């Protein structure tokens, strides 16, 4: 049995072939920076961040549409705080709010119930952004909306599932040697998706929690597996993640949502990589207008798209830290707490 001090020594003294590992989840990125994990690794072990921040993979014309709804005065927007400063192609929701558009920050999708009941004369659009970790909360909201016959809230969805995005990454970024798999998502989906990918692409996956120790052990595990040409899925986070995941959460997701091919900022459309509301619940959604789907404009010069697939480091983007800062973000990765650029900027990495 190896202890954490031995693992630390191994990782700093590692002199084998260069290894590139990706942490998929934004919370892992945050913890890596917060705990100074990079300072504990040999220069031969490189960590890159993946597309696991929901705000960062949301297309810019999604924001444009939300702004249009906010400015139309027909709708008030309900959104998590992260999203309001994310720039669309022109401006962000916070600017729409400052110009008189109605934008309210919520802390949980369930907040929408009380807001809608207390303001029955108003119509709300809920910016439903997230991965499997958040989608069950939207499903529970739909349970309440249907049960209480609340009709003045509609979900405008940009919901993603990480498996197909990882599949895309394994295929298009073959130099990534292994993945720290997102613990929270796995707690809902289970581990089968990682087994499938590990076998298909011969890459090791390690499901980890968010403590410094978990992350160090996961890196150690992936380095050892890579060095030995192994490609297993190891689950360090058994206290939270079971192989089956959370069938109850998956069931309620499936009750209201169906898989759909959706657009990822910086990547493009990935087959079956998202969820939209089932036909039976169309009254509760605003669909992404079909004519908008082809417009995939990105902010001029912003390389967030390459950051979220680990192709470049934030500092390789010409805008990083110069025109693009947390105070004046150009790309989504600079806004969110889970965004790689914002984390790197704030932590001076």
């Amino acid at each position, binding site marked *: 049995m190896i202890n*954490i001090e031995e693992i*630390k020594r191994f990782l700093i003294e590692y002199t084998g072939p260069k290894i590139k590992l990706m942490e998929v989840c934004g*919370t892992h990125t*945050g913890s890596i*920076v*917060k*705990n*100074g*994990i*990079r*300072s*504990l690794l040999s220069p031969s072990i490189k960590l890159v961040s993946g597309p696991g921040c*929901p*705000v960062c993979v949301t297309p810019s014309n999604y924001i444009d549409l939300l702004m249009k709804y906010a400015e139309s005065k027909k709708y008030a927007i309900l959104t*998590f*705080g*992260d*999203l*309001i*400063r994310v720039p669309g192609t022109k401006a962000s929701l916070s600017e729409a709010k400052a110009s008189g558009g109605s934008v309210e920050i919520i*802390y*949980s999708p369930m907040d929408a119930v009380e807001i809608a009941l207390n303001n029955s004369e108003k119509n709300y659009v809920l910016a439903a*952004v*997230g*991965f499997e*970790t*958040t989608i069950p909360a939207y499903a529970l909201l739909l349970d309440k909306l249907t049960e209480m016959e609340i009709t003045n809230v509609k979900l405008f969805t940009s919901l993603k599932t990480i498996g197909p995005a990882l599949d895309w990454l394994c295929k298009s970024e073959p130099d990534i040697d292994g993945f720290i798999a997102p613990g*929270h998502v796995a707690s809902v989906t289970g581990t089968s998706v990682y087994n499938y990918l590990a076998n298909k692409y011969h890459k090791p996956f390690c499901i980890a929690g*968010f403590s*410094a*120790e978990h992350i*160090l052990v996961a890196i150690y595990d992936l380095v050892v597996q890579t060095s030995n040409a192994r490609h297993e899925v190891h689950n360090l986070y058994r206290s939270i993640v079971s192989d089956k995941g959370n069938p109850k959460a998956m069931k309620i997701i499936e009750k209201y949502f169906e898989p759909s091919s959706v657009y990822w900022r910086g990547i493009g459309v990935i087959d079956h990589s998202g969820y939209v509301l089932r036909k039976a619940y169309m009254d509760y959604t605003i669909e992404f207008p079909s004519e908008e789907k082809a417009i995939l404009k990105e902010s001029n010069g912003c390389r967030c798209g390459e950051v979220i697939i680990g192709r470049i480091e934030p500092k390789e983007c010409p805008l990083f830290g110069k025109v693009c*800062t*947390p*105070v004046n*973000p150009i790309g989504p990765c600079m806004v*969110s*707490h*889970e965004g790689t650029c914002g984390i790197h*900027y*704030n*932590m*001076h*990495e």
Partner: protein
Amino acid sequence: MGESQKITMAHGSGGSATRMLVEELFQKNFGNDALDKMEDAAVIDVPSGKIAYTTDSFVVTPIFFQGGDIGKLSVCGTLNDLLVMGATPKYLTAGFILEEGMDMKDLEEIVKSMAAIARDTNIKIVAGDTKVIEGKGGIYINTSGLGFINQKPLHTSNVKPGDAVILSGTLGNHHACILSQRMNIENTISSDCAYLGEMVQNLIKEEIEIKTMRDVTRGGLATVLNEIADGSNTTIGLLEENIPVDPEVKSFCDILGLDPLYMANEGKLVCFVPQEDAQKALNIIKNSNYGEKAAIVGEVIKREDVAVTVTTRIGGKRILKALQGEGLPRIC
């Protein structure tokens, strides 16, 4: 007081409703020789020497929270600002902007809470103002404070390599408390809102050489230390394991992705003293009100390429920048 249970535009008109509010609420609770003259400005005695003079506005919602209210906050906040400059706070002014519809009982409670702190700390609220605006019953308070300085004023540039950094208690309590209430999360996290006069007096009484002090409010410890490091051209190295955070606050932060080093406090100060005084100063703070969880959290070193670093619990090195942008709760 009076017949009306709610603040109306009439209370801000300058007419009889205003006078009633001033006399039956503000003067009744704040009353002192300077205020009671009810003239356009308070006339006060000032000793020779330097004065410290500051102002701050308070816009917190909710206006009542565990451990305090906007009134207590508006008094303690301004007094602490004077205190950390090495001044003895003496006088305050209070400006109230009330939104139409504000509950009179709430206002009374807030005023009483301000009066109680002023009484306990021997501070006089000598002038005030009230305006009423349209709105949803909210309240905003501005306080200005004046204190006398008997010693060399404290300044950031006094800080030198080798000095110890003492934090007077746990981080993040106020921020976590306010956020919990906004998010309807039930917990026992209480704001640390407090006046730290006794703690500072004890340090001065025991002749600790205080290089500089700051209250650790908005922007959190990280931001304050960046300002001090830049202002003194030094680097500050912190030890993460020494930084006190209540377990409940820590769990709250873990769930929401918040970092206590960047969270606001309303009753904490960070104090720089020579290394040889550090243990004595720590003991004094620990034995003072609101200082029981104080700790030596780091030390000042010669300027490196960054202002503030933390050696993390696991032994990694992290660079701490000042807070950028706003602290938005994250999405998942």
